[in-house]
């Protein structure tokens, strides 16, 4: 469970990121955060693993106020919170396997990891997670030889390898084409339901949000302007969140074929 209590964030240069956010995310929920760029979606997500530092309020992850965590405790929090990025953030020159097992670093001693001495279970875990996202045939290829959708799947496998309680995905499909986007979202959804991992995804595509979310949080100018189950959401809701009529580029488009392979 994650609880935002009157959480505000002002960036060092004076830009406000979040204003008085009060949200509770329950275990196992699949939450999609929508909003225009600059609305504070990223700041919201990155507060949860302290990649940004909220300046006021309280933020509880599993009943622990995480705002004062430092050093080892902060790293411990981050091992529990997996993160997926828009640009996959893989090491291009390293193999798919090495990228995947690097998800295990937070659980592994420094010396052991430097000499690549991961336990058998960890290696099996990494391989197994590659299988879950159907990318195991590329295990020994360099990451940069894969397509965008494949790389994003590797980054999902990396996150799974860290055994997270919670997955944050910051615009995971913004760099992908429509069919691949749906594929990636389907994997995230599948993991959410099978492993009961709470998942929070930033999206700016309305149709995708509607298709995959249990619950939608709308943000504008750092404030939460909508929060409710997907059944309560209509086109009107989005127009309120975006504060303008819906346009065609707010939609990703449908899942016309089965991805790029």
């Amino acid at each position, binding site marked *: 469970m994650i609880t935002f209590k009157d959480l505000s964030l002002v960036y060092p240069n004076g830009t406000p990121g979040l204003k008085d956010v009060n949200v509770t995310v329950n275990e196992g929920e699949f939450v999609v955060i929508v909003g225009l760029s600059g609305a504070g979606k990223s700041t919201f997500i990155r507060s949860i693993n302290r*990649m940004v530092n909220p300046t006021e309020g309280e933020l509880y992850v599993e009943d622990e106020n995480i705002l004062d965590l430092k050093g080892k405790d902060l790293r411990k929090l*981050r*091992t529990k919170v997996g*993160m997926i990025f828009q640009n996959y*953030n893989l*090491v291009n020159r390293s193999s798919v396997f090495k990228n995947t097992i690097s998800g295990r670093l*937070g659980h592994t001693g420094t010396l052991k990891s*430097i000499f690549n001495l991961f336990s058998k279970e960890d290696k099996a875990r990494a391989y197994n997670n590659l299988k879950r996202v159907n990318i195991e045939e590329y295990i020994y290829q360099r990451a940069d030889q894969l397509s965008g959708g494949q790389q994003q799947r590797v980054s999902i496998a990396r996150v799974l390898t860290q055994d997270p309680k919670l997955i944050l995905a910051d615009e995971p499909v913004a760099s992908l084409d429509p069919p691949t986007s749906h594929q990636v979202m389907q994997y995230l959804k599948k993991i959410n339901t099978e492993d009961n991992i709470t998942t929070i995804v930033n999206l700016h595509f309305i149709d995708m949000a509607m298709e995959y979310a249990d619950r939608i949080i709308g943000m504008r100018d750092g404030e939460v302007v909508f929060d409710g189950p997907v059944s309560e959401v209509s086109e009107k809701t989005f127009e309120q969140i975006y504060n303008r009529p819906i346009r065609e580029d707010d939609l990703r488009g449908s899942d016309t074929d089965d991805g790029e392979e």
Partner: protein
Amino acid sequence: MGKYLPPKPHQTQKRIRNLIIYTILAIIFIWAFKGVWDRADWSVFNNLAEKFQRVIPSLFSPDWNQLDKVWEKIVETVFIAYAGTLIAAILAVPFGFWAAKNMVKSPIWNTLGKWFLILDRTFPELILAIFFVITVGPGAFAGVLTIGLTAFGMLGKLYAEVIESIDMKVVEAMEANGANKMQILFYAIFPQVLPEFLSFALYRFEIDIRASTILGLVGAGGIGTLIVLSAANRNWEQLGLILLGIIVVVSVIDFASTKIRKRLV
């Protein structure tokens, strides 16, 4: 193509400015060459042909009997370059990180690192070589130290630039999964920089081979000492062999290193 583009504006002012600059440059050139022409000691060229006839044919008929001696010194030269570059390539790693903007939080501390490397690069090789010949005595060790110290400054700067150009998003991803600084270094940074580090070190090795052939001139070991001796003794046949040896070795190493570097990056 030209007629499809809008006409260029006439910039009379710019043209006049350029004309003035060209005129001034022309005057300086004419003045400089005239000065050289008037003051040159043309007698140098009087028996040029005769001198050339004495030296050049000997240079091109290397004295193969000296091969053992020359070869030994050339190998020593290569070893000096190798040891020096190796020292520099390793020493430059921490300093490269120190001088890289994205690795050091404090800008003052970072600038200090950059300055330190600049300071190192200001020492000319031969001056350093003379310094080390005096302090540690003549011989290969002085050469190694000289090469190590000069290569270190350049490699440190190049390493820093490589580090500054890495994809920090990977670092972000590792931070987000709870890796500590050491693990980030080994899993996110080293895979991105090591091939380039190695490539620059090899490139510097090529330069150092050439540099270490000169170091012997001031007694810092290697083939240079032999060059000075054979030139002083007017032993052109031996000098010819030395030059041939240097050319062959430098070319072979340059060729090999280029091949290896292509595969690295």
